[in-house]
């Protein structure tokens, strides 16, 4: 059983921040699908949980010119099923639909996933691969400055992710090798093309969490086709290694996944 705590359902951003400040060791909770399992295993023991999903500023999915703006409290299922997302960035909708299972997608949120920055989570690759902007209760943060290593982000104590603005690319693709038990990424690559610029973000593989594969970006900017990646390899030294996959296998999957994401824009490719 979890250690006890006091629960507070916040109605406004100010209410949430005040409730966080007034406790000794508060934690925000959105879908609870990373935090509650951690608390059940007694690996986290906040004395107050401040629930964010009823705050109106954290809701909504809308196209705003050349950006797609998604509220932090939108669920994975909501993003996957949104016609606005499917139209603007179909690979992002497909990525959301590949997270966990239906029950997880009904509760888990984009803001929670991004704030958590699990090295095997899906969303960080789309946020970094699309060069999104993370809007918080305090400021705006570029994706390139946001992810700071496993389970670490640029967020300050008490700062709340409110929404994420994704530039709409000319095309984007996502290829993922799933852990067969959890469906988290064993390695996955998000590739986005904006005119002559290409961004490649890899999740699930790196021992510092999500990262950009710059050599692949340069090769694809010169020639946007899978063959442009021939001979390029990710260094296994920087890869995670565990019972599910060795560092060498993960490095191999980075290259295969990136080629498949280039070959299959607008959708999810599952590596099997």
């Amino acid at each position, binding site marked *: 059983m979890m250690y006890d705590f006091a629960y507070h359902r916040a109605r406004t951003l100010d209410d949430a921040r005040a409730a966080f400040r007034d406790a000794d060791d508060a934690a925000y909770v959105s879908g609870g699908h990373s935090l509650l399992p951690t608390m059940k295993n007694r690996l986290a023991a906040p004395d107050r949980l401040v629930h964010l999903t009823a705050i109106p500023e954290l809701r909504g999915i809308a196209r705003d010119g050349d950006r797609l703006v998604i509220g932090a409290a939108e669920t994975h299922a909501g993003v996957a099923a949104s016609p606005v997302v499917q139209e603007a960035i179909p690979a992002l909708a497909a990525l959301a639909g590949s997270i966990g299972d239906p*029950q997880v997608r009904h509760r888990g949120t984009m803001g929670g996933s991004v704030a958590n920055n699990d090295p095997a989570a899906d969303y960080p690759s789309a946020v970094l691969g699309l060069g999104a902007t993370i809007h918080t209760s305090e400021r705006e943060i570029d994706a390139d400055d946001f992810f700071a290593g496993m389970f670490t982000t640029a967020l300050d104590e008490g700062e709340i992710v409110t929404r994420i603005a994704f530039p709409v690319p000319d095309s984007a693709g996502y290829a993922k090798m799933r852990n067969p038990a959890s469906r988290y990424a064993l390695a996955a690559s998000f590739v986005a093309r904006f005119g002559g610029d290409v961004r490649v973000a890899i999740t699930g593989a790196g021992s510092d969490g999500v990262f950009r594969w710059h050599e692949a970006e340069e090769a694809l900017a010169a020639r946007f086709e899978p063959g442009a990646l021939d001979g390029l390899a990710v260094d296994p030294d920087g890869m995670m290694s565990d019972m599910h996959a060795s560092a060498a296998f993960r490095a191999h999957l980075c290259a295969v996944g990136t080629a498949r994401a280039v070959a299959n824009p607008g959708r999810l490719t599952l590596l099997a």
Partner: protein
Amino acid sequence: MSDVTINVNGTDRSATVEDRTLLVDFLREALGLTGTHVGCDTSQCGACTVILDGKAVKSCTVLAVMAEGSEVRTIEGLAEGDELHPVQAAFCKHHALQCGFCTPGMIMAAVNILERHGPDIDEALVRHQLEGNLCRCTGYHNIVKAVLDAAQQTRIAAE
């Protein structure tokens, strides 16, 4: 402690619970609805699946206080008297259970698939949509058959 009121299977049910109480413990301990099972402590098995405001969720990973004011449906709410819900009947007919431990969660997940996708579903969709429910006995084959048959019965009933 918090006072929680949740509409369970059509009736408002209230209890005063510790804030850390999981929805599944509210159902099992406070209300005595022990049809909803707990099969793991990693949020993976789906034995605890209930339908919360129209969506299948793992009730071991939702706090009772988070469900305040919501509607919850559990396995106890499916049958009408002695008449089984079509998904329950299909599970019997197709031997979709052996030990039965996963069955309540499996059936609630299946009922929610039919609610969200309608009866025009195929095997690939059912397998994908049941990924959050683990069964250690059946090998899934008869479970998938049962869900597809329940969908077909629903189609026939609608004609």
